[in-house]
Structures are given as structure tokens and as C-alpha cells.
């Protein structure tokens, strides 16, 4: 704060605003220094601070600077950026941080109490033992009161609503162990279980914290990919002045200027201009639709060929997009009824353990051991059965698997998604953007000579039109270098023209309107070369579909596209398909499958798939999906290939196998330890050994998943 700011010194009196941007493209130290030293050179930006882990940059700037201007500044440095909402930027890791603090306290207490306990076990007697017990109590009791809160809170909530979860036996066990140990300490008894109580909390908090870190990490990754479909629009008022208006502030009656390559921020009617609109986000149709004066256009659609003016008829909550969002919310409610595997285990486990403890209390009373002795044994049964390994069994396996999947390009949102992914037994695909790339790819580049290619690349580079971008991407990928051009001019709606040496060159709309997407390349007086574009299939789509079928997930296609659009894809992949489906129809199709007992894995990207993604038993979306699609999906896969979908299912099943093995290990441990406890043979030393031993075993078993995503 007190660092000298020579350039901005004069402005220091103005209060600064701060805006966060998500910059998914930054990877290294070079990117950090480029952003942090480059951004302050823009007028109005005072400083920039990069967070590489979250892939974000926080910009301190003068309040007058708007997000699009800062976005342009970041783009000028070569990074794609999206502004982050206030809520997204801050709330993320609070939960994990709370757990981490509790874990640190429990860890500190566990180490120190264990130090004292080891001296007691190795033979301290009399006054020394009493002193050590008192010291342990003074460390353990505050630590348990602080670090145990997450469990006590959740157990209390469960008991009050009349059911039980894993936290109920944990809370009862820890509380009783502390109470008994305190009694033993006061009366000068031989055995205190403070070490078991804090160690148990430490292990369990580790499990909880891992679970929560996994959720945060995936959420960060997904929010970094979120694309604002319609941040706002350029609107003009009655006097013809234009200004930028955020999507939320748009009102019916306003006139939006929609440039080529821009998405609509609201529903409206075309006032002038004629263009082609890409409606795939809304309907899944891949072929652009021509629009002219008076045509109704929807928010989220993309203007392809020429700038148009659109009068807003509906904005915000009244748009067609918002209707789909509501449909999605209703469909998502079924998913929240899923019960995690650990809670299912707890429903059987908790009553069994409590009955066992009660029976041993009654049994020893009948056998004449007296109140004190019987209670001691009953409590040692509770301590030994505290689900330490059970609490770690699931989260450790899931976080290791999620880490492996993340390296393979799949972000899983939480542990329950992994469990549901393993159970899925049918796959339903959307077509546009899911089985296909959802963006035009040039089909016949081979007709061009290398010289023509380099001119085409130079022309394509100077335009933002989607076809130009597609052309540029594929030409650069094939190693072409651009020719040197002069006098480059872009005429909206027609194309780019320039001079190359003595020849006039142009890339633009073909004279004759072809059936699909096409553009014409003209060099000198030669007749124009036609370049055709189409939405290409994702690489390895067929292999992924085959692998899923082999895993027992037969596929099918539900598409909003026309029958002629879907048929070739369906034929190539050999999948049954239904075409021309509205979002509602897809939702009903999924519901019908679910009613027949199928657990549907829905793979889709568009907004029109949103309700189906929310309704599926489990769902996946590509990283290129709309933000609605990514929000509704349980997992997001990166890159163009479809193979990660099959990998995710395979890893989820491997995880579920490890989780079951872990449960078996934990139960096996109980089978050995519980009879000892009931027989009254368990001392604090045995309890401590058994607990840490079983936890290490479970963690070691889970680590086997580290390379699960690599194995074929």
C-alpha cells in the first residue's frame, strides 16, 4: 500500500473499484508477469494481481472503466477473459477453510496428547500418570469442543429431523470417551481415552476436508470455464447516441446494435438489416437460419453474417432462455434425493453399533461387573467402532480418483457425481456440440494450392467472422504462414478484400447461395474457389460410443436438429436417434427412460439440453458448452475428444470398487476389534493402534487409484 506509485500518484485520492476476471488461458510465470506488468499500462488500471491456482486476475481500477474495456485490455495481452460475478469471486473456499482450521487444532491436540499417552503406556504410574492425564484433559477438551463442531452440528440436525447419519455415532463416541476419561482422571483411574478422541477427530476432519477441497477445486475449474452467453448489448437512445447496457438492465423497446459474431442479450424483433443467425444454443440446429426485417430472434443466438438492429421485446426473466432455466430447476430436484453411499452405510452401521454397546453394558451388568466396569466396556465398544476408517473410506478414494480424472481432462463436481457415474447403465447424447464440435470446420481445404492457402490465412486473420476463425484455426494447425497483404478492408456482410502484390484478393460471401455454409476465395481474375464448411464430428466419437457400449451403457441420440441433420451422424455412429426435439421433449424422453428403471448418463452441451442434463441420473458436458449446460452437468470434460466420457465412467467404477474394498477393510477391522472390546480387553493403547492402523490401510488402498485414468 505504501509503495510509491509515480504514474498514478495524482489519482490516489479517487477511490478505486476492483473487478475480478477469469482467465483460463494462463499457465506459467510468464503469463503472470505479462498480466501484472502489462495491465497497469492501460489507462485507468492501477494494478493487477494474478491468482494462478484459481486462474483469476483481480484488477484495481478507476470506477469509470467498464468490464468490456478491461476485457479488451486483457485480450490485447493475448488472453481470453470473462468477468466474474461478485458472489463467484469470493464465497468459494470458506467451508474448506473452516474445516482446515478445525483439522489443524485437532492435529495439534492429537500430537501432544499422544506424546503424553505414550509415556503413560510405557509405565508411568502414580502422581506422574495423574499429572499427564490432567494435562491431556486440558489439551483435549478445548480441542474437541472446537474441532468437533462440524460433527456435533450435523449430528444434532440429523437427530432433530428424526433420522441418523455417520455423525451421530461419531458425536456420541467422542462425547462419551471424553466424559469417561475426565471421570477416570478425576478419580485417578488407570485408563484415559483422550488420545483416541482427538485422533479420531483428526482423521475424520481430514476426510471431510478432502471432500470439501474436491468440491471447491472442481467449482473453481468450472467457473473459470463459464462463458457469459450475453453480458450485455450496445443500445442506442432516441437521439441516436449509443452506449453499453448490461443484460440485466435491458428493457423492452430498447434498440440493440448486434455486430457480426455477437450473441443477442435479449429476445427481440429485427428492425433493419438481413443476416444469418446460429440458433444452436437454443434449439440444437446446426444450420444457420436467415433472418430479415420483422423476424423474431431470441437471446443467446449468434449473429453470423451482417450487423442488424434489434428492438427488444423481452429481457431478463421473460426471455425464452429464462423459461428453459426454470424447467431446469424443476428437473434438478430429483437429483438432490440421491443418498451418498457413506450415508447409506451409516443407516445400517449406526443402529448396529449402538445396539452392540447397549448389549455389552447390559451383559456385563448381568454378569456382575458393576456400574463402573460395565460402562467402561460399553464406552470402549463405542470408541473402537467409531467409524474412523469408514469416514475416510469414501472421501480419500474419491479425491484421488478426481485428481486422476482432472489430469485426464474431466472435472467432476463432487463425490456424489462419481458414485452416480459408476451406476449409470444407459447413455443419451445430444448431437450439435456434443457428438459434433458445434463449430464450423472447413471440409475441402485440399482444393487450395499452398500459395492460395497462405493468402486465405492472411485474409481470414483480419476478420472476426466465425467462418474466418474456423479457416484460420485449421490453416495455422497445418503449418501455413500468412502472405503479406496491403489495403485490407472488411465490408460487413460481404467479406474481406485486400491487395497481394498486384492482384486483388478477397474472401467473402459466395455469389450463389449454397445449401450449407460456404465462402469464396478470389485471387486476381481467376474464378473464385468455393470453400465448404460443416460441423465436424468430435475426434474419437465413435471409439467413445463403442467403449461406453462395452461398459454396458448403450447409447442413443436426442437432438433438436432436423432429421436430415441428425441422420448422417446417427448412421456413422450406429446409434438410434430422435430428431427435432424441444427441450421439453428431451426432458420427457429422459423421464420415460428413468421410469423404465434406466440410470441415464446424459451428455449434452446446449441450453436446450439443460433440463435433460438436470433430469439425467448423472450428466456430463463439454467445456465448450453453454454456462447453463455446465452448471447443470455433474462433470465437465475438456478438449475436443469425446473419449474422456468413457474414461470417466471407467474411473468412477474403479473408484466404487475401491470404496467397497475400503468398507470391507473397515468392517473386517471391526469384526476383529469388537469382540476384544466386548470382552473388556481393549486398553487405550490397543484402541489407538487399531484406529491408526485401519486408517492407514484405507488411505493406502485408495492411493491405488492415482493412475486409474491412464489404464486402458
Amino acid at each position, binding site marked *: 500500500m505504501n509503495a510509491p506509485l509515480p504514474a498514478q500518484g495524482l489519482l490516489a485520492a479517487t477511490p478505486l473499484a476492483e473487478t475480478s476476471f477469469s482467465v483460463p488461458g494462463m499457465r*506459467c*510465470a510468464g503469463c*503472470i508477469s505479462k498480466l501484472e506488468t502489462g495491465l497497469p499500462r492501460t489507462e485507468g488500471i492501477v494494478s493487477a494481481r494474478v*491468482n*494462478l491456482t484459481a486462474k483469476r486476475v483481480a484488477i484495481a481500477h478507476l470506477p469509470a472503466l467498464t468490464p468490456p474495456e478491461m476485457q479488451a485490455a486483457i485480450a490485447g495481452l493475448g488472453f481470453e477473459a470473462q468477468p466474474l460475478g461478485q458472489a463467484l469471486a469470493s464465497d468459494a473456499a470458506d467451508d474448506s477453510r473452516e474445516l482446515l*482450521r478445525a483439522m*489443524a487444532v485437532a492435529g*495439534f491436540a492429537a500430537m501432544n496428547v499422544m506424546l503424553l499417552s505414550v509415556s503413560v503406556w510405557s509405565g508411568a504410574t502414580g502422581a506422574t500418570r495423574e499429572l499427564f492425564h490432567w494435562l491431556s484433559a486440558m489439551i483435549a477438551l478445548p480441542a474437541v469442543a472446537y474441532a468437533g463442531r462440524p460433527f456435533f452440528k450435523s449430528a444434532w440436525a440429523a437427530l432433530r429431523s428424526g433420522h441418523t447419519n455417520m455423525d451421530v455415532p461419531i458425536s456420541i463416541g467422542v462425547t462419551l470417551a471424553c466424559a469417561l476419561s475426565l471421570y477416570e482422571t478425576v478419580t485417578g483411574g488407570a485408563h484415559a481415552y483422550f488420545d483416541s478422541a482427538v485422533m479420531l477427530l483428526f482423521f475424520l476432519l481430514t476426510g471431510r476436508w478432502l471432500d470439501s477441497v474436491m468440491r471447491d477445486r472442481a467449482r473453481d475449474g468450472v467457473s473459470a470455464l463459464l462463458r457469459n452467453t450475453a453480458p450485455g448489448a450496445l443500445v442506442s437512445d432516441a437521439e441516436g447516441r449509443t452506449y453499453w447496457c448490461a443484460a440485466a438492465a435491458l428493457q423492452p423497446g430498447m434498440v440493440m446494435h448486434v455486430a457480426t459474431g455477437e450473441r443477442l442479450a435479449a429476445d427481440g424483433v429485427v428492425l433493419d438489416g438481413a443476416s444469418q443467425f446460429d440458433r444452436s444454443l437454443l434449439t440444437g440446429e446446426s444450420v444457420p437460419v436467415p433472418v430479415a426485417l420483422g423476424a423474431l430472434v431470441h437471446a443467446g443466438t449468434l449473429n453470423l453474417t451482417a450487423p442488424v438492429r434489434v428492438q427488444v421485446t423481452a429481457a431478463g426473466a421473460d426471455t425464452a432462455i429464462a423459461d428453459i432455466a426454470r424447467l431446469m430447476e424443476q428437473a434438478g430436484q430429483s437429483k438432490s434425493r440421491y443418498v451418498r453411499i457413506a450415508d447409506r452405510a451409516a443407516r445400517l452401521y449406526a443402529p448396529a453399533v449402538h445396539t452392540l454397546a447397549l448389549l455389552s453394558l447390559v451383559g456385563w451388568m448381568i454378569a456382575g461387573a458393576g456400574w463402573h466396569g460395565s460402562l467402561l466396556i460399553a464406552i470402549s465398544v463405542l470408541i473402537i467402532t467409531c467409524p474412523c476408517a469408514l469416514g475416510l473410506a469414501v472421501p480419500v478414494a474419491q479425491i484421488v480418483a478426481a485428481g486422476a480424472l482432472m489430469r485426464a481432462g474431466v472435472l467432476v463436481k463432487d463425490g456424489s457425481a462419481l458414485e452416480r457415474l459408476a451406476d449409470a447403465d444407459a447413455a443419451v447424447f445430444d448431437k450439435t456440440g456434443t457428438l459434433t464440435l458445434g463449430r464450423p470446420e472447413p471440409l475441402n481445404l485440399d482444393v487450395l494450392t499452398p500459395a492460395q492457402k497462405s493468402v486465405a490465412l492472411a485474409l481470414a486473420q483480419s476478420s472476426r467472422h466465425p467462418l474466418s476463425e474456423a479457416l484460420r484455426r485449421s490453416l495455422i494447425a497445418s503449418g501455413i504462414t500468412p502472405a503479406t497483404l496491403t489495403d485490407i478492408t472488411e465490408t460487413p456482410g460481404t467479406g474481406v478484400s485486400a491487395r497481394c502484390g498486384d492482384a486483388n484478393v478477397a474472401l467473402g460471401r459466395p455469389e450463389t447461395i449454397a445449401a450449407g455454409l460456404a465462402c469464396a476465395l478470389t485471387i486476381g481474375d481467376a474464378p473464385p474457389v468455393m470453400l465448404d464448411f460443416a460441423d465436424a464430428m468430435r475426434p474419437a466419437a465413435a471409439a467413445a460410443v463403442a467403449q461406453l457400449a462395452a461398459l454396458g451403457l448403450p447409447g442413443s441420440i436426442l437432438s433438436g436438429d432436423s432429421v436430415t441433420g441428425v441422420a448422417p451422424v446417427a448412421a456413422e455412429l450406429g446409434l438410434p436417434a430422435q430428431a427435432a426435439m424441444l427441450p421439453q421433449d428431451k426432458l420427457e424422453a429422459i423421464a420415460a427412460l428413468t421410469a423404465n428403471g434406466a440410470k441415464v448418463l446424459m451428455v449434452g452441451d446446449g441450453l436446450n439440453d439443460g433440463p435433460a442434463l438436470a433430469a439425467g441420473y448423472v450428466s456430463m458436458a463439454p467445456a465448450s458448452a453453454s454456462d447453463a449446460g455446465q452448471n447443470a452437468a455433474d462433470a465437465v470434460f475438456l478438449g475436443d475428444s469425446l473419449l474422456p466420457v468413457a474414461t470417466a465412467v471407467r474411473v468412477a467404477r474403479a473408484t466404487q470398487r475401491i470404496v467397497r474394498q475400503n468398507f470391507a477393510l473397515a468392517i473386517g477391522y471391526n469384526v476383529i476389534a469388537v469382540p476384544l472390546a466386548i470382552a473388556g480387553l481393549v486398553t487405550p493403547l490397543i484402541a489407538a493402534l487399531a484406529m491408526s492402523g485401519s486408517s492407514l490401510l484405507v488411505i493406502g488402498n485408495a492411493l491405488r487409484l492415482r493412475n486409474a485414468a491412464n489404464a486402458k
Partner: protein
Amino acid sequence: MNGLVFLIPVALLLGLGGLAAFFWSLRTGQFDDLDGAAARILIEDEDAD
């Protein structure tokens, strides 16, 4: 045995010191950007200010 009178408080204070240091580093955001901290060491200071 008299050593214990000093050693036990010393051990506890050291432990508490570590815990306090951890809480402090957590609160001042030193765990917020672990990847960034690892990468920043590679950035050359252009002008020492």
C-alpha cells in the same frame, strides 16, 4: 523427573506457536495461490522498486 517441569511447557508452547503461525498464514492468504507462489520465483524483477 524435574526436567519435566520445564520440558512439558516448552513442548506445548512450541506446538501452540506452530498452530498460531499456521492460523496467521491462513488468514493472510498465504495458501490462496500455491501454484502462483511456485511460479512467481521465476519472474525476473525488471526494475528494483
